């Protein structure tokens, strides 16, 4: 009997807790104007900045971000992840979710690859040809993510077979390994070089490795109008300035 009542009390407490928990999140989602933006990892700093500016210009709104490799985000959107806006680092990943987009994708920025080396350049890296040196420790992006596709294009243009030691899941993972000095060189975006404590080396073949960044609202959007105004904000004069300052080329 006592065991029963204890169990019942425990179950009741659990039930109350569960109701309280779901009640809270439901209230948060409806009361405040919150949008969720899925954005490429390379947009981390610049979109965090843009989100704060957007919130300041639109009091009462909240912009939540989920930053990751574009291909992973595309799969999450296809899997039904509740996102309002998708900003991809490549048109290919935007094409993958074409059935889920509510607006036509628009290119808001272009990025170029650059070689990132740790401060002091311990591996004496001078150009893309060093990526074929098996004695150097090299990190590049996995071929399925945009920075990996851009890297492949650059290596093809240069006629180089790279000898990477690790294929990272997104560009920020490459940057981290360079910052920590664990690799002698990594192939990342120019914007990442500007954002992190690494040294950048430009190379002529980067012209063949330009990435277009498209942005679109999604059908799953809980606040379609707010999602649309965020997209407009990214494409606005303010957006251009913030993106340019971060090293992106804007159309």
């Amino acid at each position, binding site marked *: 009997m006592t065991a029963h009542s204890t169990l019942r009390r425990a179950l009741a407490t659990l039930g109350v807790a569960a109701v309280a928990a779901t009640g809270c999140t439901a209230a948060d989602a409806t009361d405040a104007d919150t949008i969720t933006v899925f954005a490429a990892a390379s947009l981390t700093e610049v979109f965090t900045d843009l989100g704060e500016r957007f919130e300041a210009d639109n009091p009462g709104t909240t912009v939540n971000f989920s930053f990751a490799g574009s*291909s*992973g985000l595309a*799969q999450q959107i296809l899997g039904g992840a509740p996102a309002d806006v998708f900003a991809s680092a490549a048109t290919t990943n935007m094409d993958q979710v074409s059935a889920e987009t509510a607006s036509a994708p628009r290119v808001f920025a272009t990025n170029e690859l650059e070689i990132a080396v740790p401060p002091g350049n311990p591996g004496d890296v001078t150009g893309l040809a060093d990526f074929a040196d098996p004695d150097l420790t090299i990190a590049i992006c996995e071929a399925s993510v945009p920075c990996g596709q851009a890297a492949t294009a650059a290596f093809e243009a240069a006629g180089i077979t790279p000898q990477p030691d*690790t294929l*990272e899941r997104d560009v920020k993972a490459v940057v981290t390994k360079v910052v920590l000095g664990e690799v002698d060189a990594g192939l990342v975006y120019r914007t990442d070089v500007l954002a992190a404590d690494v040294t950048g080396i430009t190379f002529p073949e980067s012209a063949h490795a330009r990435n277009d960044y498209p942005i679109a609202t999604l059908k799953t959007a809980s606040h379609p109008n707010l999602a649309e105004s965020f997209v407009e904000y990214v494409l606005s004069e303010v957006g251009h300035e913030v993106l340019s300052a971060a090293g992106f080329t804007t159309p």
Partner: protein
Amino acid sequence: MTGSDETPPRPPKPRRGNRNRVPILLLIPAMLGLAVLTVPLLGLLLRAPWSELPQRLIGSEIGPALRLSLLCATIATIVCLVLGVPLAWVLARADIAGKSIIRALVTVPMVLPPIVGGVALLLVFGRRGVVGQYLDDWFGISLPFTTAGVVIAQAFVAMPFLVLSVEGAIRAADHRYEEAAATLGASKWFIFRRVTLPSLLPAVVAGTMLCWARALGEFGATITFAGNFPGRTTTMPLAVYMAMETDPQAAIVLSLVLLLVSVAVLAAMRDRWLTGLVSR
């Protein structure tokens, strides 16, 4: 519910003559608990591309990834055995100060997010790490991005499973055989090898099994510390993660293989561990 005389899955021993009815208040959450653990795996089976499975198994990166996974998990388990059993003995028997702190430290990797373990390993054994810089300068050894790095990451997360199960067994073991051996003049090392260790064998096998399974499934510490390169550091869990971003069907196939290997080993080892206890 009409199935009131249903018994929980895999009862430890058949109990004849005793109906052993499970109270409904326990049965319902128990069944829900079972569902939580098994339905996701059923989903994997239901969504698997069975018709194209054979050609996917042949024409993909499963072979090298699985081979690397089995190799690394086995080496990591051997490392854990060599270091972990003595550690368990020290924790259970040795008269040293601060043992509760040592035990807490041993347990930490079990509850720590593996990615945190990976960051810690990188900061210590990385090329610029606290220990790693000397390994690199003096011996030219660099552990990140190598198969050895995978083994270290796996051993880091898996060893607590071995240590804790063996320690528990040592505590519960009967001291009298060791005492008898000691009165007959056996040295401490001889007693450990010939008396303590054999009596602990079932617990060591059980711990080894858990340790191996945990090493096989290791992801976070591996991708952070050892990176991802096919044939060198891309173990099955990493291959699943990478495939999920581009080819979910391939990820399902890879997951199925990993699930099959894990279940087969757990099932095989469990019998040996249980019956081994009786026959010895």
